[in-house]
C-alpha cells in the first residue's frame, strides 16, 4: 500500500515536472534550478552580507576579560543609540557621548559595571569596524568566474568642524539593525504608512508615534542609499549599474503611491488634531486627553518631517543622474590609468637602501603649501616709534590710557545729542503755552521756514521723531514724555528722551511753562513732509502737570 502511494507520488512528480518542462520550453527542470541559482546567488549573498559583521563578532567573542564578552550583543544597543540620537537628529555622536550612554545603560542592566563603560564602548566600536579595516566578504561569482569582495561598513567616523571625531551609522548599519526584526525592503514605507493609518484611526497614538519614527528612518535610509550606491560605483563593483536602475525604479514607482499615503496620513493626523482641539476648547478634555493632544502634536511634527524628507527624496533622485555620470567619469579615468602604488614605491626605496630624502617627494603633495613670508624692505621707511633714552633726565611718556582720544562713535554721539536737543527745544518753543497743539506737518514747516529744508531732511530729525514714539506698546497711539519729575539726573550722555527735553528746557531763555509733551499718532494717515519723505501723522500737545 505504502509502495503504491509513493509510486503515485513519484508519478505526480514526474507529471508535474513534465508540465513545468513544457512551460520552460523543453528545458530540463534541474537545469532551470541551476539557472535560477546563477541568477539569484549574488542577490542572496548581497542580502546576507550585512549579517557578516555580527557573525564575526560572535565568533571572536573575548571571554577572558570581564564585560568584554558582551560586545556582540551590545553592538545592537550602540547602533540603536546611533540611529536615535545621531541619524534621526541629523548629527554625529562623539565617543564621549557613546561612552556615557553605554555606562548608563550598563549600570541599569547589571550591577558593578561602573568601571567598564569607556573601555567597553571602545571595544564595541572597534569590533563594529573590524579594528578599522572594515569587513570584507569574499564571494565567488559563477558568471565572471572570479572571487569578488563585498564591503560592509555598519558605522563610520567623520571629523566635525572642530576636528572632533564623530560616529555615524551607515545605511548598511540601519539596514542591518532593521532587518533583524523588520519587513522586506521595498514595502517598508508603505507598510509603516498603512500601519500608521490604522493606529491613528484606532487612537493608538503611542504605537502611531513609534511607527512614525520608524517611517522617518525608512525614508532617511532610502535617501542614504544614493551615497552607498555612488560609493559602490567608485569601488568598481560590477553590479552597481543594475543597482542604480533598481534604485531609480523603486523611487519612481513607489513615490506616487507613498505620496498618496502620506497625504492620507496627514489627513488622519489633522482630523485627530481638530477633534482634540474642539474637545479642549469646549472644556471637555481631561488631563489625560490634554497629554494625548501633546503627543498628537509631536506626531504631526514627525509625520511632517517624514513627508518633507520624502519630497526631497524625489528631488535627489533627479539630481542623482548627474552624480552618477560623474562617478562613471571618475571610474572611466581609473580604468585607463594605473593606480599609484604607494606600498611598492616605498618598498623599492627601502629595499635598495637609497637616499631616504626621496621619501619626502612621495608624500609632499599631501602637505599644506608653505607660504613664505619675507621682510619687506619698504618697512624700513615706515614711521618708527623712536625710543628716547636720556641719561639723568628720563622724560615720562604719556601712557595711552590717559590720552583722551575722540573716536568716530563719540563724534557721532555728540552730534546726534546736539541735534536732538535742538529739535526738542524748537518743539518746546512752539508748544510754549499749556494746551497748545500742533501737528507734525506744522512742526516740520516751521523748521523748514526757519532753518531750511536740510533741518528736516537730516537723518537725525527722523531719528528724533522715532525716539519720541519709542517704547509704545502694540495698539497704543499715545505717548507722554514727562521731563519734570525731579528725579532726572542730567549727564552728558543724555541716555533718555526725557533727559534730552530737560537739556532743551535749560537751553531756552526764560522759564518754560510746560513740563510734559503728549504725542498722539494716527497710523492710518500718512503725510509727505517733503518730496519723498513720508511719515505717519502725529499731534504734539504741551502740558503742565504739577
Amino acid at each position, binding site marked *: 500500500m505504502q509502495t503504491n502511494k509513493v509510486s503515485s507520488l513519484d508519478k505526480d512528480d514526474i507529471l508535474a515536472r513534465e508540465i513545468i518542462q513544457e512551460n520552460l520550453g523543453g528545458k530540463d527542470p534541474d537545469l532551470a534550478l541551476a539557472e535560477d541559482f546563477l541568477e539569484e546567488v549574488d542577490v542572496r549573498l548581497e542580502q546576507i552580507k550585512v549579517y557578516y559583521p555580527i557573525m564575526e563578532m560572535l565568533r571572536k567573542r573575548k571571554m577572558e576579560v570581564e564585560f568584554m564578552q558582551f560586545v556582540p550583543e551590545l553592538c545592537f544597543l550602540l547602533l540603536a543609540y546611533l540611529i536615535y540620537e545621531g541619524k534621526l537628529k541629523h548629527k554625529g555622536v562623539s*565617543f564621549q557621548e557613546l561612552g556615557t550612554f553605554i555606562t548608563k545603560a550598563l549600570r541599569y542592566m547589571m550591577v558593578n559595571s561602573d568601571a567598564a563603560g*569607556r573601555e567597553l564602548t*571602545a571595544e564595541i*566600536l*572597534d569590533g563594529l*569596524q573590524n*579594528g*578599522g*579595516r*572594515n569587513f*570584507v566578504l569574499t564571494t565567488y561569482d559563477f558568471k565572471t568566474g572570479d572571487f569578488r569582495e563585498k*564591503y560592509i*561598513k555598519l558605522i*563610520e*567616523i567623520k*571629523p566635525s*568642524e572642530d*576636528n572632533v*571625531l564623530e560616529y555615524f551609522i551607515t545605511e548598511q548599519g540601519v539596514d542591518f539593525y532593521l532587518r533583524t526584526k523588520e519587513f522586506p525592503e521595498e514595502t517598508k514605507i508603505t507598510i509603516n504608512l498603512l500601519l500608521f493609518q490604522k493606529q491613528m484611526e484606532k487612537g493608538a497614538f503611542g504605537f502611531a508615534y513609534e511607527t512614525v519614527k520608524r517611517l522617518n528612518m525608512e525614508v532617511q535610509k532610502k535617501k542614504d542609499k544614493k551615497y552607498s550606491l555612488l*560609493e559602490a560605483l*567608485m*569601488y568598481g563593483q560590477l553590479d552597481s549599474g543594475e543597482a542604480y536602475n533598481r534604485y531609480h525604479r523603486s523611487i519612481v514607482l513607489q513615490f506616487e503611491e507613498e505620496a498618496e499615503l502620506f497625504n492620507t496620513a496627514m489627513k488622519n493626523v489633522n482630523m485627530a488634531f481638530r477633534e482634540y482641539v474642539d474637545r479642549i476648547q469646549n472644556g471637555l478634555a481631561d488631563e489625560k486627553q490634554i497629554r494625548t493632544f501633546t503627543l498628537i502634536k509631536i506626531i504631526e511634527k514627525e509625520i511632517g518631517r517624514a513627508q518633507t524628507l520624502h519630497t526631497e527624496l524625489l528631488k535627489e533622485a533627479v539630481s542623482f543622474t548627474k552624480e552618477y555620470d560623474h562617478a562613471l567619469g*571618475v571610474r572611466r*579615468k*581609473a580604468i585607463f*590609468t594605473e*593606480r*599609484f*602604488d*604607494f*606600498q*611598492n*614605491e*616605498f618598498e623599492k*626605496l*627601502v*629595499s*635598495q*637602501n*637609497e*637616499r*631616504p*630624502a*626621496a*621619501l*619626502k*617627494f*612621495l*608624500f*609632499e*603633495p*599631501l*602637505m*599644506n*603649501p*608653505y*607660504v613664505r613670508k619675507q621682510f619687506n624692505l619698504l618697512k624700513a621707511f615706515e614711521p618708527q616709534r623712536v625710543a628716547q633714552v636720556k641719561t639723568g633726565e628720563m622724560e615720562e611718556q604719556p601712557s595711552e590710557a590717559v590720552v583722551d582720544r575722540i573716536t568716530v562713535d563719540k563724534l557721532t554721539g555728540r552730534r546726534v545729542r546736539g541735534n536732538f536737543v535742538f529739535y526738542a527745544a524748537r518743539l518746546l518753543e512752539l508748544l510754549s503755552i499749556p494746551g497748545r497743539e500742533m501737528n507734525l506737518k506744522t512742526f516740520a514747516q516751521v523748521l523748514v521756514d526757519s532753518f531750511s529744508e536740510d533741518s528736516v531732511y537730516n537723518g537725525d530729525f527722523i531719528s528724533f521723531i522715532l525716539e519720541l514714539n519709542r517704547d509704545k506698546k502694540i495698539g497704543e497711539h499715545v505717548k507722554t514724555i514727562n521731563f519734570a519729575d525731579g528725579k532726572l539726573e542730567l549727564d552728558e550722555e543724555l541716555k533718555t528722551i526725557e533727559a534730552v527735553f530737560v537739556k532743551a528746557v535749560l537751553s531756552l531763555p526764560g522759564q518754560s511753562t510746560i513740563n510734559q509733551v503728549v504725542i498722539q499718532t494716527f497710523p492710518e494717515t500718512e503725510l509727505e513732509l517733503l518730496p519723498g519723505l513720508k511719515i505717519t501723522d502725529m499731534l504734539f500737545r504741551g502740558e503742565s502737570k504739577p
Partner: protein
Amino acid sequence: MNAGMIEILDNALDILKVLLQGEEVSKNKNVLLYDKYRYNSAVEEMLVHIANRLELRIYTGSDKLFVCPEAGSRLFGWTNEELRDRISYVTTNSELFTCYFIIMTLVTMFYREAYPDTPVAYVKINDLIESVARRLENLLRIPELEKVSQENQFDFTEICKVWQRLPDAREGVSGGKNDKVAFVENVCRFLYNEKLIALDMIQRIIYPTERFKVIIWNYYEDRDNRRDLLSFVRELEVNV
C-alpha cells in the same frame, strides 16, 4: 584685458588667496567664493590654471576646496630645514628622515595604492608603531646594508639607528618626550596640524581627513603628476 576677464581673474585670485591663507572655502565657509568656483566654469578654469603655474594643485571634495603643492615645488614646498622646525623634538636630518619613514608607513597602512576612499577606516597608533618597528627590523636583516650605507651620507641605516637609539616605551622604558611612542605621536601631531589626519588620543586612533583622501585620489591618480613625482624620486637616487 576686458572687464569680464578681469572679473574672472579677480575671483580666481580671491579664492587662491583665501586658500593660501589657510582658510576654508566650502559650502559652509567663504560660501560666495565657493559658489563662484562651483557655478562658474570660467572661474574654475582660471583658478586651476593660475594654481598650476604656481606649482599648486586645486581639488574639490565633500563640498570643499583643497590646495596642495606639487612634489618638489620650490615655491610652496617645504625644505628639510623648515620641516625640522615644524616637527617637535626633531633636530637632525636622520631624525627627520625617520619621520618621513613613519609618514610613508602610515600612508601605506591606509592605501596600498591610490583609491577614492581608504579601505581602512582608521589606524591605531600602536599598530603604526608596530608596523614601523617591524619594517625597520626587516631592513636591518639585509646582509649588505652596512656596505651600501658606507657609500651614502644618509640612508635607511641611519633611520634604523635613530629608531634603535630611541627608548622603547612599549617595553616600559620611557624616554619622556623622546621614546619610540612619543616620537611617533609627534609625527602624528605634525600630520594633524597639516590637516591630514584626525587624532583621538583617548582611543589612540588615527583617522584620515577628507583633505587626505581627496588629494590621494586626485593628485596621485593624475598621470602627469605621477610621472613628475617618480622622476623626482629617481633623480634623487641617481644624484647621490
